[in-house]
């Protein structure tokens, strides 16, 4: 194979890494920063994809669909936090596992009631529908580059809010010591409800943006859930930088794994995780326990 072949694969790898970070961003916030084990992450992603499908169908425009879909996703997040998650902050993690597992089943059922069992897709908005020629017979869709750009924006935005702003400081403080932050006069209940809604909105946003390059079908969230956890665990909980590096590493290993070691393609990512956890149990950028 020629050099150009590997360059295109490198592009694929980086692009896949970006997409993975975007897909895992909601989980990074809820699990990575806030420490809530959220198995329903895939369901929120699926919710986003179906909202994009439904609202694009109704309004005829993906951007309008996203604009209308985000508040809905936030509202769902708020309701779930107020009526379910908020009761469990003080309890063992196992309760969160059980509760969010139940949410998966509930959301799957709701999805089927609302949208049925068909496979759907969302058209790429016409201004981004083009593609450019990569090699003599392969071209590259512009929309994929747009996803990468959106991912960079989300990554920078998250990093800035969490690391550089007062709000981010309070969130981090609230996650590590709830009572103390409350004692300092901050309404932690409201804060957590807000952050949870944001986490759900992020997961939904990823689902909406990915919908035009993916297909929208029942159970799609399950494929997303595990790889998102791998991203956060490799990067180390509590670190947005970590999740970003983790996503990039997975993109590289998975893409070149497929090319160079096709028989091992399905286990490469998990092997990478195992090796990293043996070397650094807290993940690449995680705080040592």
């Amino acid at each position, binding site marked *: 194979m020629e050099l150009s072949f590997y360059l295109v694969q490198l592009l694929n790898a980086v692009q896949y890494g970006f997409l993975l970070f975007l897909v895992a961003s909601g989980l990074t916030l809820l699990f990575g920063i806030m420490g809530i084990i959220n198995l329903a992450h895939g369901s929120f992603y699926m919710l986003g994809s179906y909202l994009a499908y439904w609202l694009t169908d109704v309004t005829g425009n993906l951007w309008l669909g996203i604009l209308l879909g985000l508040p809905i996703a936030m509202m769902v997040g708020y309701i779930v936090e107020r009526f379910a998650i908020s009761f469990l902050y003080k309890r063992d993690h196992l309760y969160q596992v059980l509760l969010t597992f139940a949410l998966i089943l509930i959301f799957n*059922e709701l999805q089927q009631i609302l949208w049925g069992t068909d*496979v759907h*897709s969302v058209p790429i908005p016409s201004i981004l529908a083009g593609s450019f020629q990569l090699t003599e017979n*392969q071209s590259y869709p512009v929309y994929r580059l747009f996803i990468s750009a959106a991912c960079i924006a989300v990554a920078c935005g998250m990093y800035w809010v969490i690391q550089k702003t007062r709000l981010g400081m309070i969130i981090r403080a609230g996650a590590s010591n709830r009572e103390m932050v409350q004692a300092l006069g901050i309404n932690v209940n409201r804060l957590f409800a807000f952050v949870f809604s944001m986490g759900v909105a992020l997961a939904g946003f990823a689902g909406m943006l990915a919908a035009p390059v993916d297909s929208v*079908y029942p159970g799609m969230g399950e494929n997303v859930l595990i790889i998102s956890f791998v991203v956060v665990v490799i990067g180390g909980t509590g670190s947005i930088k970590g999740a970003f590096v983790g996503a990039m590493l997975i993109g590289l290993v998975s893409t070149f794994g497929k090319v160079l070691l096709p028989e091992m393609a399905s286990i490469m990512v998990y092997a990478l995780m195992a090796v990293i956890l043996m070397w650094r149990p807290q993940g690449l950028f995680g705080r040592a326990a």
Partner: protein
Amino acid sequence: MSEKNNKGISRRDFVIKGSVATAGLAAASVLGPAQFAIGAQAKVKVGILLPYTGTYAKLGTNIRNAMMLRFSEAGNKLGGRSIEFVDIDSEAKPAKAQQLTNKLIKKENVDFLVGPVHSVVGMAMAKIARGNGPITVIPNAGANQLTGSLCAPNIFRTSFSSYQMGYPGGPAMIEDGHKRVVLMYWNYGFGKQVAAAFKESFLPAGGTIVKEIPTPFPKVDFQAYLTELAALKPDAVYTFYAGGGAVKFVKDFAAAGLKNSIKLYGAGFLTEGLGKAQGNAAEGVRTILHYADTLDNPANHRFRAAFKSSTGAEADVYAVQGYDAGELILRGMNAVKGDTGARAEMIRAMETAEIDSPRGKLRFSKSHNPIHDIYLREVVMGKNQVVRVAAKAQDDPAEGCSM
């Protein structure tokens, strides 16, 4: 954690089955006494094990609805007896297959068992049902073994074997003039069997496999493979993908601009029932299947209209397989006038049945697998149009079946 997960699952199951059971009880308390008063025969019990949730939900729903349609056309009577359904969601989960099959056979004592969609669930089911179990009709699962090494007098299939899905593809592609071909498929049991059958006919006919690319199941990140495909520059690519994966593959293939230089072929699932989701990307894609929406025969026209009016949805190959499963059970029961005790006679009637199916003529092999025509189809204006018959009366070698 996994233990907790299991608990979660079984609790949900309990709710589903519980509600089915309560509904059954309620029905029994209303209908029961009246029926006994007029001295009707006991009902025939039909157990259904199909997926109604997850990726295969639509397949399961269409199969069930089409079978119900066939029964209701026959007045909801099997050989003069009323029918009682025990309908269970298999979730297409192999881990639960054994437990759910046992529930239907041992606890519910069903006379007929219909299911499943997923091949691995099918293997678990067939292992329990074969021999003395209920008469079993498989309306989708394609594993060769189901009418091969696991074949049994009481097990029938109305769908296809993976062999029948792959084998006719080879000569069809040669006839279309494609000799250098890349083989791409989901790397699991069914995908591997389809690929093996394809090679079995393609290589002796003078074809060359440029490269075989098995991709992890059920992953849908195809970008790296498409780049490889572009670099290999074959005449055509033969694929096996289904459902959400098929939509993504066809769209990614078109988005990568490969349609201009490489012709896309596949087992029929690649474009079956996915027209709306795939849109323009699927135009010109050729697939091989034992059915096409556009088949011009009276049985197909009648069936499609009836399915549409009873369910509101368009019929697809899965619905046809469910419809024929219903027909096959009817043939058996009508032949013995509802006497489920006359098992040998019923099986004889079923295995010699010649059905005027929406797919065309349908008969059964010695191993109880369908013998039917296989069509080469091309997507034109969003519909799978028949190009030609790729294989007349395609049989299956039934490897390992001693019956």
